[in-house]
């Protein structure tokens, strides 16, 4: 199958509209808005980075797309149009035909993703047998080819081996091979390289990029690492407290972030070219998702917060074509100076 390139013009492969996933405690007294009113798009052949800190909801978003949420989580609203079909409405049985075949996922820890009791050939061939009804023998043949395509040396012997006989980098490549085994249209990688060494990480990222080009895959990277986004992604969505606070093309966001949180994140990473200056730290802590402030969730830590920010959560603004930002300041130029006033800056105490 041919991907239709990087064309932004065609219909998106996955179009997420106002998606919300909440965790509800058994008594129903505590609601954690892990994913709240999220809208995102990804086209075939594109790479989207979803960046956020722990607890920002980025992994829950990935689980929501795969529809493999834990029992306490509910999709409470929104749509996920994948190749025109709404995944939110899909019955479980049909969802099983999508999962692993048209949308696949690579998880962070390759040791936890592989079953220690089955051979590599067995595990790489499993999706092919399940989804395509292939025989054991032909699944093993395909497994061998897949191992070769993820650059595992001597795949003939490796298919008969077990996960413990492989190094961490090799295991992660095997998980990658399982991911692409049924030629999915969309591959979601949740922190795929955090457990890898630097030079192995570089190998793996290059491999993913090559696979993407060969198969016209759309790739979603869930990560806390802006370096991975800078290296790999075309589009970026920044999550904070369950919401996408900013999204758009990577280089435009890096060059001129629109949301103060994005700006602060970009300033907080040490750079190789740095002099001796201090890093710009973000004061305070991320908020509790079960007790969000009434206004913008970032306002208590935001150096530029104005009174609006504490009163109402900002809707999505469109600062330019293809970009979105949930910040009242995005609108600031449109609001007459007299209304906003420069004296309305609020002092923010460090948490």
């Amino acid at each position: 199958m041919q991907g239709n390139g990087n064309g932004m013009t065609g219909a998106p492969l996955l179009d997420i509209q106002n998606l919300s996933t909440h965790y509800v405690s058994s008594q129903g007294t505590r609601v954690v808005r892990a994913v709240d009113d999220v809208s995102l798009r990804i086209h075939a052949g594109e790479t989207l980075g979803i960046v956020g800190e722990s607890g920002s909801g980025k992994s829950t978003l990935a689980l929501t797309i795969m529809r493999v949420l834990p029992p306490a989580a509910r999709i409470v609203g929104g749509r996920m149009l994948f190749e025109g079909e709404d995944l939110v409405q899909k019955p479980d049985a049909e969802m099983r035909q999508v999962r692993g075949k048209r949308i696949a996922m690579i998880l962070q820890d390759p040791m936890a993703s592989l079953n220690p009791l089955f051979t590599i050939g067995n595990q790489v061939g499993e999706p092919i047998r399940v989804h395509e009804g292939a025989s054991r023998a032909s699944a093993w043949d395909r497994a061998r080819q897949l191992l070769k395509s993820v650059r595992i040396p001597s795949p003939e012997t490796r298919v008969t081996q077990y996960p413990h006989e492989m190094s961490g980098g090799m295991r992660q490549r095997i998980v990658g091979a399982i991911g692409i085994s049924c030629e999915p249209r969309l591959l979601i990688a949740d922190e795929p390289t955090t457990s890898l060494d630097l030079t192995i990480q570089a190998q793996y990222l290059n491999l993913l990029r090559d696979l993407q080009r060969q198969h016209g895959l759309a790739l979603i990277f869930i990560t806390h690492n802006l370096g991975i986004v800078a290296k790999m992604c075309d589009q970026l969505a920044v999550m904070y407290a369950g919401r996408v606070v900013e999204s758009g093309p990577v280089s435009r966001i890096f060059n001129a972030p629109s949301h103060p949180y994005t700006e602060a994140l970009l300033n907080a990473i040490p750079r190789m070219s740095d002099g001796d200056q201090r890093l710009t730290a973000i004061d305070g802590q991320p908020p509790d998702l079960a007790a969000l402030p009434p206004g913008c969730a970032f306002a208590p830590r935001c150096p530029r917060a104005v009174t609006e920010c504490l009163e109402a959560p900002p809707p999505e603004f469109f600062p330019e074509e293809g970009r979105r930002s949930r910040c009242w300041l995005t609108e600031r130029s449109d609001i007459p100076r007299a209304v906003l006033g420069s004296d309305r800056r609020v002092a923010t105490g460090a948490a």
Partner: protein
Amino acid sequence: MALLEAATLTKHFQARRGIFGGERGTVRAVDGISFAIERGQTLGVVGESGCGKTTTAKLVLGLEEPTGGTIRFDGRDLQALDASGRRNYRKSVQAVFQDPYASLNPRMRISAIIAEPLVTHEQLSAAAVKDRVLELLDLVGLPARAADLFPHEFSGGQRQRIAIARALALSPKLIVLDEPVSALDVSIRAQILNLLRDLQARLGVSYLFIAHDLAAVAHMSHQIVVMYLGKIVESGAAKQLARAPKHPYTEALFSAALPSHPDERRDEIILAGEVPSPLNPPSGCRFHPRCPHAMPRCAEEEPRLAAVEDRVVACHLFDAAEMRRGAAPRLEPVAQAG
């Protein structure tokens, strides 16, 4: 005189192979490395898993006994110290570990956690201990009321501040920082790195900083040593080394570091293969099987660390004879077929 000097420091572990322990092998975790930590400065150690950086940290902390070589602290050889000298050394060298969720006892109050080194090492009155705890909390930017709370009441960044306060309790001269920010969120990392630098400026404490985030090491360190399979392959002033690595391994390692901006296009050197087992390291230069510039002699002869311009490098490419023959010292990065 440097605060700490390690000379041909070596740690070999005896390993048994197989469940019946028939064959024996030697893991050369740290193999004859020399480095110095200056007073009030930071020495950064970088390298991948199995390079020996954690073993080096354990040797410096006195948690492992070296099988060869010496560590001199304040001019005195650690091996030659008597019991009270050892005790003094343990007071002068403290550690902050990676995971602040594992390094703080969940059943102890913060005041007890921070006071523990004081209680163990110093004869102080209860009031003096309490004053010191409050002073330390203030030093790391935590409120005094934190003293009465338990670790679970704090976030990762705050816990790491508590761990730093505990490390500072005995006014050490050296703190070993083993991946101190890897477990923290991006927005919190900068807080902790800034705090560590402020404390160094204020207290004149030295750091041995171990991390896999090269940009963070370059940012924090005065000197950097790069390790590969138990050996130092290159060392020098941090900024210069990060800007222009010389050893092919350092070059590949820094080129593998993630860019900080999407427009930053670097020549990538993708190394083939993985780090070999330290149980059976390659002959000659340990890096030669993965090195894009390997020559026949690299497989036979182990390169020695030698001065090259502003630093020391262990690589035959920088050998005088090789340089005359035109094995250019500044190599065009050869991107291996990826």
